[in-house]
Structures are given as structure tokens and as C-alpha cells.
């Protein structure tokens, strides 16, 4: 008799399983969690803290806040940041001061760990939320963060 009992119990569990998937099938129009990506670029927004790419914000006078202290270069674990700097005469005080020439950022090597942004004392670099970073040419992944012709914002000291 347990032969028939086993068959009956087995079929009941199979029908319960089918009811779960059947329920999702009936609600498939509203319940689909697919996002149709290239069509919804306008409405797709990342969260504020999303780690997309490291950028250096410039204000309207083309000035940035990077003093060339090299704390981000030391904090980075794998050499993604290279700073080319020189000591020049500061026009205001007349003394020799460290100034940056180029702040090079290798996007291809970056692991998005965030240590450089935490280490920066003047908030010169920040996270941007762009996620479409693929290029056809690998040399485009080596980015220079400070724009040409920009200089340090007055009053920023480290």
C-alpha cells in the first residue's frame, strides 16, 4: 500500500513545484526584471557613491585642487597613479613649491579600491558615476586627470 502512497505524495510535490513557476508565468508581464539596457540610458542612474572612474573636478576658472603631495600615489596598491611634478617658484610667496605637471591615471589597472580618494587631503579627486568605459584602443585608457592649462586653486594647502 505504501507503493500507492508514495506515488500520490510524489505527484503532489511535483504539482506544488509547478504551481510556483506557473504563478510567475502568469505575472510575467509585470514581474519581468529585465532592464532593456541601451534603450533606457536616459532613466538609468547610478547611486551617488558608485565607484565608476576617478576624476579631478575643475571649477569654472579651470582650476583644480591638487597640490602634488603624492599621497594618492603612495596609497595606491598597484601603481595606477603616476604624478609628474616639479618644484617651481610660486608667484605669490616667491618661494619654491611643488607643482604638478600631469596627474596620470591608468584606468586599465585600477581596482576601484578607493584608497587614493581616502588619502587625498584636499579632496582633489572624486568618484564619477560613468560605467561605460570601454574603448577600442588601449592607449585611451591612460588618462591625464588635470586639464591642460589648469592651475591650482588659490588658497588650497595640504
Amino acid at each position, binding site marked *: 500500500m505504501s507503493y500507492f502512497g508514495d506515488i500520490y505524495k510524489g505527484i503532489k510535490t511535483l504539482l506544488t513545484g509547478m504551481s510556483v513557476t506557473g504563478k*510567475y*508565468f502568469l505575472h*510575467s508581464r509585470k*514581474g*519581468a526584471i529585465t532592464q*532593456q539596457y541601451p534603450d533606457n540610458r536616459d532613466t538609468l542612474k547610478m547611486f551617488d557613491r558608485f565607484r565608476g572612474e576617478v576624476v579631478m573636478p575643475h571649477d569654472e576658472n579651470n582650476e583644480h585642487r591638487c597640490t602634488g603631495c603624492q599621497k594618492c600615489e603612495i596609497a595606491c596598491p598597484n601603481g595606477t597613479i603616476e604624478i609628474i611634478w616639479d618644484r617651481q617658484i610660486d608667484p605669490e610667496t616667491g618661494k619654491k613649491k611643488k607643482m604638478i605637471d600631469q596627474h596620470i591615471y591608468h584606468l586599465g589597472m585600477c581596482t576601484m579600491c578607493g584608497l587614493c580618494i581616502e588619502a587625498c587631503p584636499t579632496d582633489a579627486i572624486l568618484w564619477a558615476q560613468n560605467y561605460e568605459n570601454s574603448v577600442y584602443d588601449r592607449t585611451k585608457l591612460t588618462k591625464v586627470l588635470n586639464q591642460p592649462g589648469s592651475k591650482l586653486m588659490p588658497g588650497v594647502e595640504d
Partner: protein
Amino acid sequence: MNITLSITKTIYEFLAGYLSNDAANIGTMVTIALIYLAIFAVAGLYLVLLERKVAAWFQLRIGPNRVGFWGLLQTMADALKLVSKELTGTVKADKFLYNLAPYFVIVSSLMALAVFPFTKEFQAFDINIGVFFLIAISSIGVIGILLGGWASNNKFALIGAMRSGVQTISYELSVGLSLLTMILITGTLQLSEIVEIQKNGWLIVQGHIPAIIAFMIYMIAGTAETNRAPFDMVEAESELGAGFHTEYSGMKFAYFFLAEFINMFIIAAIATTVFFGGWLSPFGITESIPWLGVFWFMGKTLVLVFLIMWFRWTFPRLRVDQLLTLEWKYLLPLNLLNIVLMALIVWLNLTIQF
């Protein structure tokens, strides 16, 4: 508008006006074969698309919807891609058998498709041993699978083919016996006669309890015949790669793939004809318009195809020895008991007739 539905007669009479009788005969057969080949190809393609959309709806996503409106041209694109692929082969494979294997499965599916009554008189081959012919033809398909696995010279393919062979020949018994249960009510093997008898009520209603049991056994055995989940140990993707069609690519792979979907359609079509009234409408609503029978037939078949797909996307896979235990220890004894039960009911005139 008076369209005769008997296509064989129409084409024969058309050709007899131009050619001699023998040539008209051969001409009829060739034309019908070409028409069925076209139906086979188109139906196979759209069944694949249906499977992908249904699978997507079960899995909380949308299926293909970019190529053509609602994805309707998706399988055309896939077929074009498969045609343009290189036909690879292994070095030590047996070339003749390797190339021959896909044709067995295609030919057996096409021959089985020929005997179905799509509507009154729309039937290519109305033989008086219809059901027997169907069961015999479906046994030929397994030769293709075994040949494909052996001739690939690949251990994985061989294991897959052996498993499939064992599975198919075991479950053919259940398919045959459950169809036999319904033949006890009809008394004839001819498919068009079976549908005529169902004018008094569908066979699943006429033979109530044993017919329902026979239908359930038939559905389980039918999905096992076509190597679909939950019985798809053969092509268990997460275990051994791709089973017996690992070494096939391009058009030959497409043959195996399409043949699986057409086999599923055939199993559902047999169930519709024998259990659910074929092309008849329920309660004879549209009996005066015979050509609507095609839509009733396709509708009922597609509901059963959907049921088979539902099984695939819900249940886990059975292990090979559990598959065989299921057949020989559970389905076969139940089938035999069911036949005795049905025989009793027919003898005592307890069938429900309308």
C-alpha cells in the same frame, strides 16, 4: 467558397489533367512531400522561438524581442548563422556513419508527421494501422542518436548516446501500452476513425478514470521518449558537455535540434488525436465549418506542448538508474493494471457517451 480539404485528391486531379496516371501519382507524392517539408521547417523554427519565450516568462525575463517584432525573426537569424558555419568533424570519426546519423532522426520525424489528421480529410496518408505505424516509426529515431554518438569517436558523446538508447527503448513500452488502453474503447487503429468516434465525446471523457491515468502515463513517457527534461540525462549540459551531439556543428546540429522539437510536437499531436478529440471542437460548436478544425487541432497541440515545456523548466533531472526504476517498477505495472481496468469498463458498458 468550397475548398476541398483532401489535398491528395486535389493535387492528383490537378496533375492528372497534364500527365499520365502514373506520373500524376508520383507527382502528387513529391508535391506533398515538399509541402510537408516546408511545414516541418517552419513549424520547427517557430517552436524553438516559442520555447525561448515561454522559458523567459517562467524565469522573470523577456525572451528575444529585438530581431523582428516580438522576436519573430529570431530563429531565421539563428538558422542563417547555423547554415554559414563550418561543418567540423573529428579525425578518426567514421565519416559515413557520422554524416548519416542526422538523417535518420529527420526522416523518422517527417514520416510520423504525415499520418496526422489536421482536419476532416486533410491527411496525407490515411493508413488503417495508423497508431501502430506511429509507434514503429518513432523507434527508428533512436538509431540516429546511437550512430551519432558512436561515430563521433568521443567518450562523452558515447556515454550520452548509450544513455539515450536505453532510455528510449524502455519508454517506448509505456507509450505503446498507454495508447493501447485507448484503442480498447475505439476498436480501430485508423487515426481518422478514432477522431470520428470522438464525436460522441472526447476519449478522455468517455473512458474516465483509466483514461486520465493513461494520459498521465503517456505524458511522462512521451517526454522521456524525446529526451526532454526532466529526463534529459542525454544532453545534461551541466554534466558532460553536450552529450551525443558534441561533435556536430552547423547544419547537422540544426537537424538534431529541430528534430527534437518536432518530436515534441508529434507526441503532443498524438495525445491530441487520441485523447482530446483531434480536430473536433468541444460540443460540436463549429462542426459546420470543417476548415476551422486546423485551428482547433493546433490550439490543443500547443497547449500540450506548453505543458511539456512547463515540466522542463520546473523539475530537476533524474539520474539514469532512477529513470529506469521509474519505468520498469512504476510505470509499467501501473500501465498493465490500467489496461485491465479499462477492459472491465468497456465490457461492462460503463463508458460515458454523449
